């Protein structure tokens, strides 16, 4: 690729990033036909190059096909930039997310995905009430619905929302849930609740004491 072509590609990638990230007042992401209008018919190739570049800094381009048009219709698909790697539990508090709200979201999504993506709201609230008071559950569901993670239908059925389709890997979440066990929960609990320093000290002390008799 000549220097001039490379320069053009760089410029197009910058345009693509601006279109996808700086969507202003609208909802995130951009449709394929909008990218085609600004970048030309080769926009999928430009997005591929952009994806490779973004991966170097822990981001990637995510394509979400239009459910009615199917995966081959890129014009109607929507393009987003998402994180490439999972966040750490310690990042959550730093980024300002509420741990309880994410726990409610996690349980809700896993339950909905295991029930073919929808369930009556009453049933869902009853399930979540085993962990949190009703007012808190209802407030969280309301907020998560507003943010697009959940969708509330007229007939009192909650289903997964557009943001879940973009941000959450269904199979990965269910696999993670399948591997949860009470024993692991306790271990994880110690590691997390004690924090980095406390957990390390505990492990060392256990190690020392176990080495003693030998």
């Amino acid at each position, binding site marked *: 690729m000549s220097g001039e072509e490379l320069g053009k590609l760089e410029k197009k990638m910058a345009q693509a990033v601006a279109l996808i990230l700086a969507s202003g007042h609208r909802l995130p992401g951009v449709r394929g036909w909008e990218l085609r209008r600004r970048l030309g018919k080769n926009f999928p190739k430009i997005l591929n190059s952009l994806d490779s570049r973004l991966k170097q800094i822990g981001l990637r381009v995510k394509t*979400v096909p239009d459910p009615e048009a199917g995966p081959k219709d890129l014009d109607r698909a929507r393009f987003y930039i998402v994180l490439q790697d999972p966040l750490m539990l310690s990042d*959550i508090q730093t980024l300002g997310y509420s741990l309880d709200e*994410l726990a409610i979201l996690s349980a809700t999504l896993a*339950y909905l995905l295991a029930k073919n993506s929808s369930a009556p709201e009453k049933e869902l609230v009853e*399930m979540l009430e085993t962990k949190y008071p009703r007012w808190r559950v209802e407030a969280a569901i309301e907020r998560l619905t507003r943010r697009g993670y959940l969708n509330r239908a007229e007939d009192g059925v909650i289903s997964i929302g557009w943001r879940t389709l973009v941000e959450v890997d*269904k199979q990965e979440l269910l*696999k993670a849930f399948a591997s949860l066990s009470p024993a692991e929960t306790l271990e994880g609990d110690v590691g997390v609740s004690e924090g980095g320093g406390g957990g390390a000290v505990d492990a060392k002390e256990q190690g020392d004491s176990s080495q003693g008799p030998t």
Partner: protein
Amino acid sequence: MSRGVRVTREELLRMIAILSEIESSRLDPFSVDVSNLLSRLREIIERERDVETIVLDAETLYRVSVVLGLQQRWIRDRASSLFIDAGMVYTKIIASDPKSLVTAFLQAWRPIVRLEQISVDLLLKGYQHFISRPTRGLVKGEAGPLALSRPGAYEAIESQISSELGALLAELSSMGGWVKYWDFIKAGGDRRARAYLLSYLISRGEVDVRINTLSGEIWIRAAERVLDEPRTVSLALTVGD
């Protein structure tokens, strides 16, 4: 109508009701025995051949095909969810603490990245646009007083806008339920004026808005109750001529 035909008709109507219920209430599509249902349909159509029975039989057959489609989708969804049962997920949720639930979620969660700030470049473009606009009231060289400075003029305009807002809200309420935004805007009068007035009703929380991001459809309805909290989401729409 003979008793036999009446019984057959009732049976077919019952089948249609059950199959429709499965479709509309998203019940388990495998709760109905399709094989037995088809055998029974065959018996009925061989015994009764009047027009009404044939029509109802065809309707039942259509409903069966819909349920078969739902069964196919159900299997596909179950396969993609690794056949993990909701009961098992429920047990995991009960047995796990919030941190474990979040840790599981983080493995599958990749949040969207977006910018929510204006750039200097955009600010400059905005400023250029601002200074390029003609000064209001001086376009035609008029030096006379502005209309609003006349006594009572402001109140009259406010009253007119209030009545137009009320009329628009009443029109939307009379439609009942969700209506497509663009259908409503184009329903009558100056659509730019309707869109402008509607934006006020939406901002005041008197009209609910729902957007399907994937299909791009926008739905509106008269709000059942007006919330006190201010709306913080902006929605910009371009209404052409």
